[in-house]
């Protein structure tokens, strides 16, 4: 198992290199010059050239890329923000708590609600409950979050004055962004739970569990849900990974100082180091969450666990034997 985790962590290196190359490439070929942008239209060509040198924008593409990667590897230096002149690492770490809190809140809400709704709609297939849950899921996935966020602000902040419209420091400020961000994933989780559960509750082992005289609720939760869990966890993990890298629309609508808002602002003013660092960070978050999801699989399904630790399978068996002898 440890070997497997080690292997997966090592595999992160080529992934991150690939992501950095692609982002660097895309930014390099984007029209516009940050030096000009910073100095204004009146700047002399000499001043612009000096600024480019200072920003590390001189030289060929390859030179620039190698310089960038070199700094990261040797000094863990992702560059300095053009606008605040602080290091990108500090910028990201400063905003990460907000983003993390929002992502975690909306994940918990969407996982709990989505799984409950999905189970109800699978066990009461084709009833009014199922139709209502399906309608909710359809609306939830198709509603754009910036519009939904604005509607929430109009109703609950401006008209009802229940919650503040911006910021992210007090629990009252957490409510609306969590609803806004969680709605989409709740809908996805509901749909995934429904289809996964529908498949599982037709399996023979569910009939076996019923034939033992087990309570229907235990049959559904213990025998059904655990088997249906894998695709559900995948969906939850995916959206959590994406949200960890910043929920750009939600953070922007609710003016939350998080990674997403930082990226949007950085793109607007061609703040290249922040964009690059941010994208790398998003990629890292997704990869780490993916790895955690894969490890969760092993925890849920013993067949996958056996696959992960093929060579170590014999060890626990040997332990058991000695225990028996003792």
């Amino acid at each position: 198992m440890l070997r497997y985790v080690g292997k997966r962590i090592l595999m992160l290196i080529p992934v991150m290199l690939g992501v950095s190359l692609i982002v660097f490439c895309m930014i390099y070929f984007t029209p516009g010059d940050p030096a000009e942008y910073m100095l204004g239209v009146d700047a002399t060509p000499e001043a612009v050239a000096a600024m480019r040198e200072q920003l590390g924008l001189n030289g060929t593409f390859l030179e620039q890329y190698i310089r960038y990667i070199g700094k990261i590897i040797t000094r863990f230096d992702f560059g300095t923000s053009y606008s605040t002149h602080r290091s990108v690492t500090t910028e990201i770490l400063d905003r990460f708590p907000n983003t993390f809190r929002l992502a975690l809140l909306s994940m918990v809400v969407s996982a709990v609600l989505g799984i409950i709704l999905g189970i109800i709609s699978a066990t009461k297939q084709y009833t009014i409950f199922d139709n209502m849950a399906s309608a909710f899921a359809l609306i939830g996935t198709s509603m754009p979050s910036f519009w939904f966020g604005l509607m929430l602000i109009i109703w609950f902040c401006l008209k009802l004055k229940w919650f503040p419209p911006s910021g992210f420091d007090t629990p009252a400020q957490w409510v609306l962004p969590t609803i806004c961000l969680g709605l989409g994933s709740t809908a996805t989780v509901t749909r995934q739970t429904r289809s996964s559960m529908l498949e599982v509750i037709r399996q023979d082992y569910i009939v076996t569990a019923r034939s033992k005289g087990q309570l229907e609720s235990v049959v559904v939760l213990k025998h059904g849900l655990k088997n249906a869990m894998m695709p559900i966890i995948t969906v939850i993990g995916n959206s959590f990974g994406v949200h960890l890298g910043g929920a750009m629309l939600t953070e922007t609508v609710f003016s939350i100082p998080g990674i997403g808002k930082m990226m949007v602002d950085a793109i607007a003013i061609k703040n290249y180091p922040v964009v690059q660092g941010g994208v790398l960070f998003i990629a890292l978050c997704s990869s780490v969450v993916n790895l955690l999801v894969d490890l969760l699989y092993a925890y849920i399904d013993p067949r996958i666990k056996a696959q992960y630790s093929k060579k170590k399978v014999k060890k626990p068996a040997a332990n058991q034997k000695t225990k028996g002898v003792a």
Partner: protein
Amino acid sequence: MSENLLDIKNLTVYYYRDGKPIKAVNDLSFSLGKGETLGLVGETGAGKTTTAKAILKLVPEPQGKYESGEILLDGKDVLKMSKGQLRRMRGHDVAMIFQDPMTSLNPVLTVGEQIAEVVRLHSKVSRAEATKKAQEMLEMVGISGSRYTAYPHEFSGGMKQRVVIAIALACNPRLLIADEPTTALDVTIQAQVLELIKDLKDKFNTSMLLITHDLGIVAEVCDKVAVIYAGEIVESGTAEDIFDRGTHPYTEGLFNCLPRLDSEEGERLNPIKGLAPDPMNLPAGCAFHPRCPYATDACRQSNPKPVEIEPGHFVKCHVRGIGKEDA
């Protein structure tokens, strides 16, 4: 008379697809005494498994519907039981060994947990005692108790079937339903599993309903036999009645299908002509008449009633039952 442990009377179960009924079980009746073993024999799709599931009221609803009839277990109608009564009955009074051991065990729970689960449901014991009982059950079916923590995927098909048997027998049920318990296993394991079921059944004096299409198994294990065709019992009686004096044309056909060791070289098997009827569209009259070599006009027009041709031996046939009715 409540001597019988199980009395099924005129059971009719339909499945519905697009509003049209699939007539799986039609007006089926049979009974099973205490300690007896009844073999329910028939082709694939004849309604054997549906009948078995109906006894536990496990026919998938709402697709499946119990149209009429009663299933009396010790005089109490299973179909009228409350949810709580059903739960106390399932696994405790009636237990079932399912057809396919590969899919009837939960892949994410250890085999031990799955046996202990049924123990804990029906007897008030601590977790530790249930574990101990589960280990005993494993030993009883010939698996080392130390494999308690193994998962189903670590077991072979035969071992999984043993676990399924251990689950079924863990609470000493009075009625054991074995739905083709050996179909998914290879022949050497089949013999072992059958032997095991027979031993355990004798040990606990359990009644058994053995569902199979394998006449060899029936001959070996069963006291009584019921032949099922298109959801109806066409002939029933003791094993001798059916094997030595099988009367219904369908029973006759089944035996003619068996390969014989003493057959002449070049002699071919003698299958029943035609296919089993489509349960969505059963023939009028006797369901077997399109395939029956003796069919008469009466067979095409009306469905015969079962006739007792000798004590305890019933035949449902216009041709073979006739004349003996008065005798």
